[in-house]
């Protein structure tokens, strides 16, 4: 019995300590959203340098106009957003996320937009959802090492999947929803307007042809680095990363047969305390000037083709919105991806490890 007396106070004290720690923790979590006090917006994106460009192009003019300041946070982590929403401790106000994620989490973890604040008529048809409007577009471009293929360069998206005619190492993006399956189906002869719903069996069968010679990138940084270090001979590159690689001297050329165009949305996590201001910010960021500036800084595409950013020579080489490349554009179906993202991701993971 003596031990119970001895352990008793220890347990009581530790319980008290535990309670104190928990209370302190919950206080600090509660206070994290205390940014509301000064009315500033917490903006969440992928980090430097991309987020710096967003601050420059979007946040600065908005702060100048309204006096509302920004707190920048990152990286974008949908799991974290889900946790915040479930715990009702939402500390994020505006999040840069893929259009597919917007569709998928609309109403669940993401607020619906008030279209009296955000003008949805300015965006290309089929790109607006209840919870998000495009913040910028980007393209997934088939690029090849011109030193490797010299006199006989690939010219069609089908060549990416033809390892006999065009041997060499390939690289594809770390995210499945940015165009790999679309590229496979287009290469296999599926007409552009019959792409969705994606024929997954056919797409994976096509992908089987390149699986052995393809690096399935883990990060976009890896893609850029492998392009610069000539670790790969061709790839489905995101234009912003390809731009950095070209600038660093990577001897790569785009193939303008088919280019998959995706976009990111700015969304408001459900339960944000600054919903109104956040929507005003989204409206402001989709102005022509901020959009053009963002495109120039970050080498992305503006929210509509009529906006003409002042691109430098490398950006011009990768500009899918240039008049001569217009026919190559294939816009993804964010609504389809929103509905099928989990299923496709599971299947893709299984296929990769199979």
């Amino acid at each position: 019995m003596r031990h119970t007396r001895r352990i008793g106070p220890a347990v009581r004290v530790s319980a008290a300590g535990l309670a104190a720690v928990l209370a302190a923790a919950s206080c600090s979590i509660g206070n994290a959203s205390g940014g509301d006090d000064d009315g500033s917006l917490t903006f969440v994106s992928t980090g430097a340098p991309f987020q710096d460009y967003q601050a420059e192009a979007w946040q600065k003019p908005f702060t100048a106009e309204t006096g509302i300041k920004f707190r920048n946070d990152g990286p974008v982590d949908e799991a974290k957003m889900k946790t915040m929403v479930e715990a009702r401790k939402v500390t994020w106000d505006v999040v840069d996320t893929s259009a597919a994620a917007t569709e998928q989490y609309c109403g669940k973890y993401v607020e619906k937009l008030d279209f009296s604040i955000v003008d949805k008529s300015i965006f290309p048809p089929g790109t607006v959802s209840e919870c998000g409007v495009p913040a910028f577009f980007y393209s997934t471009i088939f690029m090849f090492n011109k030193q490797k293929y010299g006199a006989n360069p690939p010219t069609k998206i089908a060549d990416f999947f033809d390892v006999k005619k065009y041997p060499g190492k390939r690289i594809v993006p770390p995210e499945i929803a940015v165009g790999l399956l679309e590229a496979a189906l287009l290469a296999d002869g599926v007409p552009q307007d019959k792409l969705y719903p994606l024929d997954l069996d056919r797409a994976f069968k096509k992908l089987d042809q390149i699986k052995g010679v393809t690096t399935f990138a883990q990060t976009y940084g890896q893609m850029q680095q492998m392009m610069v270090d000539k670790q790969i001979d061709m790839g489905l590159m995101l234009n912003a990363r390809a731009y950095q690689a070209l600038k660093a001297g990577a001897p790569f050329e785009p193939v303008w047969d088919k280019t998959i165009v995706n976009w990111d949305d700015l969304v408001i996590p459900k339960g944000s305390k600054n919903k109104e201001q956040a929507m005003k910010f989204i409206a402001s960021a989709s102005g022509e000037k901020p959009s053009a500036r963002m495109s120039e800084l970050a080498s992305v595409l503006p929210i509509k083709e009529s906006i003409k950013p002042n691109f430098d020579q490398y950006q011009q080489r990768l500009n899918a919105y240039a008049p001569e490349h217009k026919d190559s554009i294939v816009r993804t179906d964010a609504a389809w991806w929103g509905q099928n993202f989990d299923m496709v991701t599971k299947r893709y993971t299984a296929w990769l490890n199979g």
Partner: protein
Amino acid sequence: MSAPTASAPPVAATGGAGPAPARPRRRMAGWFILPATALLLVFFCYPLAFVIWRSFTDPSAGLGNYTALLHDGVSTTVLVRTLVTGLIVSACTLVIAYPYAYTMTRVGPRGRNLMTVVVLLPFWTSMMARNFAWYMLEQRGGLIDDAFSAVGIHGVVLLGSVPGVAVAMVQVMLPFMVLPLYSGMEGIDKRLLDAATSLGAPRWRAFARVYLPLSLPGVLSGFTLVFILTLGFYVTPALLGSPQESLVAQLIATQVSKLLDFGGAGALGTVLLAVTLLALFVVSRFANLSSTTEKAVTND
């Protein structure tokens, strides 16, 4: 909670039987572990319990997440791959570390200090720096590829493969093997070997019959430590591996950050934990066995 109560009877027995002056000191000892206990409860036990609970309840109550692991066509493959990789890494680490630790017991104090520093050096280097160094070495046209090409073997690109991950993990894990081995070997009485040889055993037999069994406890603890650390390794596979040959930590990351499937990820994590505990249990049985051998040998 339940832990103090469970350990209570022996404490009571010794406390009751022990002399009175010992008591205050023990009471102090109880207080000393409070911060660690509180920390563990708040930041380990509670989240862990939550993860396990969620794996049985999210999205619906039952074993759904666990049966899904069997049928999704990935999880079992990846689990087996992770276990095999863990075994290979542990075995390779052991082969490299054993002679090293043995030498540490044979050199003078200055040499021993130097060897300890060399082993610990990787600890003082950033994890990321070490992994990126391997990245450079293993990539196409990297040092390893070039070296093999020079002798006529082309295309040895370890980057993005399980062997590439394993090589880097062996290097990262070496200190975890060398130190337990060394502390085990240090306690072995060298005169036993001399005794064996003086009784006519060749050196190799003296080693195999006397030294090796005596060093087994160190081998087991080093092996277990490395194996368990390898099972949950994330950074090295994420940097040097590839999604085609992912290990279990990468799969869990996909489930959490891409699928937001906290229940499924929890189930996979729970299975990994169960496997780890099972490994520990099996090893502890062996450890008992080896300590009895040790006794037997020492009694000889």
